[in-house]
């Protein structure tokens, strides 16, 4: 039965926009105040689903960063480093509770600014961000059990740059552990998605967080580069592309300042013949189409055992035809807008290379809105390991399907990538899952599921997917220096 004859087409069910009030322009958040940028520059932020300008964002320059780093240093030395862990924990709990109270507002704002479906911001992004604050609030007074000696110490001022794919969630991954461990923060949100970070800044004020503990300096790539180069920053954390990660590393190489990098990936989802097929299909769909495929750990390569390839692809295509693409504010939307024109161009370029190189593309026949940035869910079959679409991160809703004949071949192909962030194994056979997860070189391995996150579970990559872990006990370590010596309680602020 074709799509058109289905009488049960769901009427639009849009979430209300009334929940948020967006100002016409935003200042920087430095030293507990919203201040106009010294650079005097501002740039528009748009809703990628409609191309409507939502607001103007301040472009932080070097002077602004100087002020922010100074404020963070002052807050660290005068207040934050002197607070006992249990007091820091109270602030984190308060922030978490305030986020809970305003969860729907955050979800709507994130969807408007990012283009991802409201179902995902409401059910995934915001609840997980809140969980990160609750989880790390609990750690604040228990750091002697983190595995960094009996008296672990913070670094001081931490510089953090976050990406546009999970704006508030990535902020939480960065800010919560930094504050729990006693560091102060200068954070730069992604150029296209600053709004939830700015709402978070307001929430820091509401929580009574001491001035300068969190500073949010919005801007573009130049702002980020200046922050990385800033000599007043003691530790650096970045989530984003491998390309930028490498550049950051080059900048920091000579300074011996510690850095955590959460970079790209080309995750393999391996489906063995004995898998629970229907659930494996769900997992593949979640793995690559969740968040429009703008996920560093996306399962962008499907490795399917050759003897079930045809049946599996047939079922997968039917499932993909059920994906509802469109208005991200509609509660029934599964796949929203591509975050930016630039990202859309990159996805188009890579998918074209796939067709040129001989892979076979398939897309459902779904309608797309006329304005905004959109890309249909796409599967490539006849992909070989040498194709660009099998090697490069597309960061969009595009799945490359490769086949294997034996378990050994599956592992070999899965590991044959410069990346090593995540992998999935689908099998009803426990021993095979245990064996495969031992052989796979990836920081996160999911068995019979994909894209499941938890604040207590460390996340991070092998090889060019990054350094260090975020979340769990492991995620605390990059924010601490190992020490078994109690801190000297002198009149002056103490560093290290």
């Amino acid at each position, binding site marked *: *039965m074709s799509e058109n004859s289905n009488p049960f087409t769901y009427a639009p069910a849009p979430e209300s926009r009334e929940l948020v009030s967006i100002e016409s322009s935003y200042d920087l958040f430095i030293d507990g105040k919203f201040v106009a940028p010294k650079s005097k520059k501002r740039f528009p932020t748009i809703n990628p689903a409609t191309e409507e300008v939502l607001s103007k964002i301040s472009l932080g320059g070097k002077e602004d960063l100087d002020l922010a780093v100074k404020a963070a240093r002052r807050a660290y030395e005068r207040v934050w480093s002197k607070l006992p862990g249990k007091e820091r924990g109270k602030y984190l709990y308060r922030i978490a509770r305030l986020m809970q109270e305003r969860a729907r507002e955050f979800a709507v704002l994130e969807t408007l600014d990012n283009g991802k479906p409201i179902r995902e911001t409401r059910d995934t992004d915001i609840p997980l961000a809140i969980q990160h604050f609750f989880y790390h609030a609990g750690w604040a007074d228990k750091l002697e059990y983190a595995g960094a000696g009996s008296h672990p110490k913070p670094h001081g001022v931490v510089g953090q740059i976050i990406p546009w794919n999970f704006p508030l969630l990535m902020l939480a991954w960065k800010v919560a552990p930094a504050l729990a461990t006693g560091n102060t923060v200068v954070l730069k949100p992604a150029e296209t998605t600053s709004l939830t970070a700015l709402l978070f800044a307001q929430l820091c004020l509401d929580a009574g967080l001491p001035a300068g503990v969190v500073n949010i300096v919005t801007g573009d790539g130049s702002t980020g580069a200046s922050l990385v180069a800033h000599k007043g920053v003691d530790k650096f954390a970045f989530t984003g592309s491998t390309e930028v990660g490498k550049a950051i590393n080059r900048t920091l190489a000579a300074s011996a300042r510690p850095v955590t990098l959460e970079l790209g990936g080309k995750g393999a989802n391996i489906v063995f013949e004995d898998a629970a097929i229907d659930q*494996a299909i769900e997992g593949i769909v979640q793995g690559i189409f969740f968040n429009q495929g703008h996920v560093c750990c996306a399962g962008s390569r499907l490795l399917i055992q050759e003897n079930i390839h045809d049946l599996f692809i047939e079922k997968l295509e039917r499932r993909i035809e059920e994906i509802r693409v469109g208005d991200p504010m509609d509660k029934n939307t599964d796949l929203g807008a591509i975050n930016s024109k630039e990202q859309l161009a990159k996805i188009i370029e890579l998918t074209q290379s796939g067709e040129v190189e001989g892979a076979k593309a398939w897309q459902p026949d779904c309608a797309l809105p006329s304005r905004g940035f959109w890309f249909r869910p796409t599967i490539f079959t006849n992909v070989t390991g040498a194709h660009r679409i099998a090697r490069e991160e597309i960061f969009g809703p595009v799945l490359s399907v490769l086949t294997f004949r034996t378990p050994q071949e599956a592992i070999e192909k899965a590991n044959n990538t410069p990346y090593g962030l995540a992998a999935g194994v689908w099998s009803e056979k426990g021993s095979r899952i245990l064996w495969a997860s031992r052989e796979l070189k990836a920081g996160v391995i999911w068995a019979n599921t994909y894209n499941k996150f938890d604040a207590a579970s460390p996340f991070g990559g092998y090889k060019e997917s990054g350094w260090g872990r975020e979340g769990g006990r492991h995620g605390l370590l990059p924010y601490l220096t190992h020490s078994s010596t109690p801190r000297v309680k002198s009149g002056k602020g103490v560093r290290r």
Partner: protein
Amino acid sequence: MNQLHASSSNLARDFGITDDRSLALFLKTLPGVDQVGAEARAAELATRSIKKESKSWAIDMAISMVDLTTLEGADTEGKVRSLCNKAHRPDPTDPDVPHVGAVCVYNDMVGIARTHLDSIGATDIPVAAVSTAFPSGRASMEVKLRDTRDAIEAGASEIDMVIDRGAFLSGHYKSVFDEIVAIKQECGTKAHLKVILETGELVTYDNVRRASYLAMIAGADFIKTSTGKVTPAATAPVVLVMLQAVRDFFDRTGIQIGVKPAGGIRTSKDAIKQLVLVNEIAGAQWLSPAYFRIGASALLNDLLMQRFKMRDGYYASSNYVSVE
């Protein structure tokens, strides 16, 4: 070798099933169901937000799919007649409300229901009889066949039989299979056969999938979740697994089997969630009372209340719908 019932169809042979061993092997080699994944998918589909015209459409579709049921020891002729009136005209003030899918009663009430439905002009509403020593199925085959024959002779055109869960759980698939074949033969062309799996007693989703296939290959026209006497009954993940089974069976054989969740579906919201499952798992061609029924009693009034709300814009008192 223990050959299958002589009346089993060519279908079994098409699946390579000829005896107890090949039947057991076939069921065992069906792909497994991952519990976590199946429940997650059902939960995800439960977040669909059905509004306005699609909600109106869904409410009327759900009404037309209700197997309006009374299965109590305390059932009386009066109760059954009043249920039949309700089935025919769920809302006597509004002729646009469709009639329900069927009236479902115990065996001895079939004649009363049929006669009454005919007398009020509801000749197009079938009477479904729960049969084969419902709900436990613990009786001899002779009794089960007689039970079925009685119901059909009294005017039942749909037979809701129970499978022998004890035999299924102890691996005696052939005996379960043969019973269904025999009851199907008894139904002949006079009655549709709905096979109740009683998923609450089969417990695992793997078992639900196996029992679904077993029933379909043996000749079921519908597979039904539950008797309504065991909890849990028609949970969303169980219905999801059964909908996947009928879809895959259709792909392979071209035969479209219906699904009937029964038990625990009491609100319009629950019913609409079921329709979303049908729509997104099996597909739109199952969105018809010919292929999807909901076994329920209290549900119908809630659907009517929601219908009033859609029409009038406010919730009416429950005193505006009749209690049977």
